[in-house]
């Protein structure tokens, strides 16, 4: 195994998250990761559904107000995700599925940025049917978050090495 994994897994933070019997260690971090997932992926999906024409009477621009909550969920997951990675670097980084998950997240972020400009940047967008480009972005967003959740869930079943430590 890579010496970096061995070093990281021996740090006190990594050891604490992995081995502590405290509910505030691994269980709480994993729980925060799931709550963040619900709000990040879920609110994105709700916005996507509106763009695709469900709930057509909801003014699209006003959905902007929910984006900060979506971003709180996202950053909750970025932080808890890094902590989980510190706990089990070998498990994640030797698994191709983990890189697939990162790829989906990166794509979802780029898509969200585009959406913030094209959908929420146009003041006249409100009630007219969303343009083709916006619909494509919404579909891409749904695909990316579904991919992220699927890859994330499969991490528990596809890893080949749990830790580098013996």
């Amino acid at each position, binding site marked *: 195994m890579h010496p970096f994994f061995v070093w990281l897994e021996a740090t006190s933070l990594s050891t604490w998250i992995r081995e502590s019997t405290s*509910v505030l260690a*691994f*269980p709480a971090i*994993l*729980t925060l990761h*799931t*709550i963040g*997932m*619900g*709000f990040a*992926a*879920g*609110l*994105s*999906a*709700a916005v996507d*559904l*509106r763009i695709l024409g*469900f*709930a*057509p*009477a*909801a*003014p699209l621009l*006003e*959905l902007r*107000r*929910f984006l900060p*909550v979506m971003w709180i969920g996202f950053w909750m997951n970025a932080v808890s995700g890094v902590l989980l990675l510190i706990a089990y670097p070998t498990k994640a980084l030797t698994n191709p599925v983990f890189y697939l998950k990162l790829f989906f997240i990166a794509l979802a972020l780029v898509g969200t940025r585009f959406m913030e400009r094209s959908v929420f940047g146009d003041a006249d967008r409100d009630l007219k049917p969303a343009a083709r480009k916006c619909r494509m972005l919404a579909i891409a967003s749904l695909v990316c*978050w*579904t991919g992220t*959740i*699927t890859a*994330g*869930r*499969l991490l*528990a*079943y596809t890893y080949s090495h749990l830790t580098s430590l013996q």
Partner: protein
Amino acid sequence: MHALQFWIYDTLRAMKWAKPFMTSRWGWPFCETVHFLGLSLLVGTIGMFDLRLLGMGRRIPIRALHKLVPWGVSGYVVALITGIMFLATEPDQYVFNPAFHWKILFMAGAGLNMATFYLTVFRRVRFLGSGDDAEVPAKVIAALSLFLWIGVIVFGRMLTFYRPADCGSEPLSSISTCIPLR
């Protein structure tokens, strides 16, 4: 109380249809994935509706946003079906698990809360238009909804960490939280 637990346990164990699929290579991981996708859809759409009642995105008429609620319900149904498949496959891991008892309690609370919403304030709240603020009882229900669904996630996650052990010779308490010898 544990007589009821035994009955639930036996009923779940009799549901043999789930087992062949769930014990196949990708059966359980597939259902876990679908369970989490359903969860996200539920939290995203119902959570957005709750946040609107609490005053976020106030320019959105309630009726317009309520159109997303069926999506939340379908997320719930999907999570419920996959949840029952977990139960039918490993009943003792859930029926005797304290985290599962709390999860069921919070799910029942969320259901009751939703019923209260539709039976009381919904009649008035549905006519709230752009810029209208919801009444206090509606806000309380919305806040409770967020709290209860987050609680369901918390205890769902805790299931793994409160897996029941065999009871051994311990006398059973009113609710069994260990797997009794039969």
